[in-house]
């Protein structure tokens, strides 16, 4: 990919030849990239384009296979993350990280740079640091005011809402008085009201002379506030320039808006303003056949239904607040909504990966709310989680074998059937799944779930992190599955494509069903267009404790 240079005289961050790949997957491959000083630069691109990996590499949280990068002319290649931060290049994380056990105020006070009291030698001499501490406290208070967190200052950070956590994170980053901020999806999970705030803050900070690079999927935000946009696809910058320029670049539209897919025949696609318009128009030109609704059709007795489902990761802050939805036989039903609306959580609750604190889940007529996930699977439910959806150390064949675990006798037949659907897997049968490329992984994940021919299949973002081609493939597989009589409940960040192939859809907002309708209607609904622009994929918050602790199989 040819270097993308900017006209800016001063370069804040310069990368050259930075490469990093995971097993079969090339995550980052940046020839040349320059982030201009004092500007608000947006880094966009589909999921898995390597945006976050790039952040990790630059800030020293991940090693690069090759390449060098410098910060205001100072070579910081391979520098320890904490040194990078001290050099003034401070990042935030995609999954908000707050120190739950600390108060909001302490979260900020911690962040202040160059604290003498943090030196062991001085820690026991309050006299040596009390003044500085007081100064920091004032700055912290000011920031809290600015980010409307002042009233929460003495609450443990654990009590903050998702949006407030975002704010806290930005505030905390500012507390370090950085020269440049790297914000990883600062708007993800922030409700519309706060969104405006955050964006305003970013602009204000830029005006104060701070350099900001932020990853964002919310095109409105990107278009609205950024001075400079860089688009990444499969780890490589494919466009850079003003928002308008980038939005108009066909490559970007293809890669990011992922239009090149089968759209429903005669789907009336609205034409939103700006880049999506281009996307939309291109989309509508493409004509493909929507999966035939099989006998019984969407109006038959639901094969899967959830009523007033309340669930989440900790009971005091449920993410789903009473969601009701159902899937008819042979239906493809889409769940769309903004980041943090609870899409993946809904699937998890339905699958039984997380317990429901209230409401019921039914498979057919059977109430399965109390059953463990493997029991629901035995009753014909199939579930493909979003990330970590294959067994990395098992071979492809073994992965498939696990798919039909409950009915070993059907192994041969299902194997042949599925391999017919996914011929690409046939010659990788002996490879450990961990070595597959992203696309192959997704196919394998789908294949594994289709081994037993489930009555209903729950798909969590089958196209996440896939190249346009692979995305297309994924969606074709989903349609194929549906044609083979499997009902599908699908969560997608790529709402357009998703709705295009769905019979019906639900739009989630703040853990509730905001609106519902047929795929076509929703696709036409301006509110959906708004949402779909804002949609990104999100992962459940996982903390180190969980990963250390023995897995809970209950």
């Amino acid at each position, binding site marked *: 990919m040819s270097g993308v240079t900017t006209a800016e005289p001063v370069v804040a961050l310069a990368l050259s030849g930075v490469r990093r*790949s*995971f*097993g*079969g*997957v090339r995550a980052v491959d940046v020839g040349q990239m320059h982030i201009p000083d004092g500007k608000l630069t947006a880094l966009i691109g589909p999921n898995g384009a390597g945006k976050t990996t790039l952040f990790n590499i630059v800030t020293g949280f991940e090693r690069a296979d090759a390449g060098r990068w410098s910060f205001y002319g100072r070579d910081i290649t391979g520098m320890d993350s904490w040194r990078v931060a001290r050099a003034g290049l401070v990042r935030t994380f995609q999954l908000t990280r707050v120190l739950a056990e600390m108060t909001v105020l302490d979260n900020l006070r911690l962040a202040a740079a160059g604290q003498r009291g943090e030196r062991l030698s001085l820690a026991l001499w309050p006299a040596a640091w009390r003044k500085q501490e007081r100064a920091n406290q004032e700055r912290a208070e000011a920031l809290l005011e600015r980010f409307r967190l002042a009233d929460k200052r003495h609450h443990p950070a654990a009590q903050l809402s998702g949006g407030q956590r975002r704010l806290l994170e930005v505030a905390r980053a500012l507390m370090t008085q950085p020269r440049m901020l790297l914000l990883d999806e600062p708007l993800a999970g922030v409700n519309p009201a706060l969104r405006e705030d955050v964006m305003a803050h970013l602009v204000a900070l830029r005006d104060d002379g701070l350099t900001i690079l932020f990853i964002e999927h919310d095109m409105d935000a990107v278009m609205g506030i950024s001075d400079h946009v860089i688009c990444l696809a499969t780890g490589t910058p494919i466009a850079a320039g003003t928002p308008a320029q980038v939005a108009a670049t066909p490559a970007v539209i293809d890669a990011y808006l992922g239009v090149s897919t089968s759209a429903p025949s005669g789907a009336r696609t609205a034409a939103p303003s700006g880049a999506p318009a281009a996307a939309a128009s291109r989309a509508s030109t493409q004509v493909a056949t929507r999966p035939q609704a099989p006998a019984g059709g969407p109006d038959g007795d639901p094969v899967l239904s959830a009523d007033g489902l309340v669930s989440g990761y900790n009971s005091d802050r449920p993410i789903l607040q009473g969601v009701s939805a159902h899937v008819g036989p042979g239906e493809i039903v889409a769940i769309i909504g903004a980041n943090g609306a609870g899409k993946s959580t809904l699937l998890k609750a339905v*699958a*039984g*990966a997380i317990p429901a604190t209230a409401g019921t889940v039914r498979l057919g007529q059977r109430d399965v709310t109390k059953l*463990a*996930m*493997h*029991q629901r*699977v*035995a009753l014909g439910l*199939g*579930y*493909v*989680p979003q990330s*970590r*959806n*294959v*067994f*990395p*150390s*098992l071979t492809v064949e*073994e992965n498939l*074998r*696990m*798919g039909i*675990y*409950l009915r*070993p006798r059907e192994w041969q037949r299902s194997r042949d059937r599925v391999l017919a659907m996914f011929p690409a897997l046939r010659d990788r049968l002996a490879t*450990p799944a*961990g*070595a597959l490329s992203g696309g192959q992984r997704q196919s394998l994940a789908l294949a*594994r*779930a289709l081994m*037993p021919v489930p009555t209903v299949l729950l798909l969590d973002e089958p196209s996440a992190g896939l190249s346009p081609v692979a995305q297309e493939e994924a969606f074709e597989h989903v349609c194929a599955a549906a044609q083979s009589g499997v009902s599908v409940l699908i969560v997608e960040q790529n709402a357009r494509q998703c709705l295009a192939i769905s019979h019906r859809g639900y739009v989630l907002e703040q853990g509730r069903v905001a609106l519902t309708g047929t795929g076509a209607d929703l696709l036409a609904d301006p509110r959906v267009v708004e949402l779909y622009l804002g949609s990104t994929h999100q992962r459940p918050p996982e903390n*180190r*404790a969980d*990963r*250390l*602790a*023995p*897995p*809970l*199989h*209950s």
Partner: protein
Amino acid sequence: MTNATVTATRAALPRRSVVVLLAVALGAAATAAFASPVQVAQATLDGARFGLVIALSGVGLSLIFATTGLFNFAHGEFVTFGAILAWLCNVMLGLPLTLAAAVAVIGGAAAGASVEYGIWRPLRRHGVGLVAAIVVSIGLAMFTRHLFLFFFHGQSRSYREYTVQQAWHLLGVQLLPKDLVTMLVALAALAALGIFLKRSRTGQAVRATADDPDLSQASGIATDRVVLLVWSLGGALAALGGVVLALDDQVSWDMGFRVLLLVIAGVTLGGLGTVRGAIAGGLIIGVVTQLSTLWAPSELKYVFALIALVAILIFRPQGIFGRAQRIG
């Protein structure tokens, strides 16, 4: 990280086994400077036997860790339990040792299953963290060990059979029939386990659970049952390990506690969660221990095994055959 390391590991596997063998051979060669080849060969043989016993006793610990993340400091008590049970059957009830061993293995399986069912499953439901769980296992070890002392008393005892045997000699190296049997049994059991994990559907389910419990559930695997199976397997193998360990080294109330550190060292060094690792680690520990006595005071023989452990962990935290995967 995952994919990267996994593939790296895969690619390197054959090479790695070679490296291990080379290292062992090298150690032996180096020692030859201090001792006659016969001594070295003899020490290596003895070390191999002890190492295989360690591997046999430890592989369960390693699998339990891989599937549940728990480091079971009470694993040594399974070893003691097996030996004592066999002793009771052999000496008190007068069963032939082979039969007694069988009983011990069944008993070990039962013991393993019951601690999982009675203690660890409830604790997991409870959401008890790794460290708290380790402390529980320490408590369990103290409890069981002293129960043994209470009923079995402090003296060490021998079985009724195979206590003293005529050794075979070949080129000055001597080998006892029972030691040969021990090695064969250990190898057979470990190989069987390896094949079970690789080939059988249930075995694959075990590996799947170790890989990703949630996804396993999503595939219809009752992970609770898998973990139960792993515990009973671990208990059974450890019990068998105890039986063969006592063949040469007598039955005593704290025999498991005494070998625990070496067992942990072995499986960790080899890489937790892999049979291959347990064997390699056990062999290294066993052989290093024995070889060191040829040129260092034997009261220090374990020091060298432990140094090997520390060294390897520092340079390769996930062990020789381990995957970096679980690191988090």
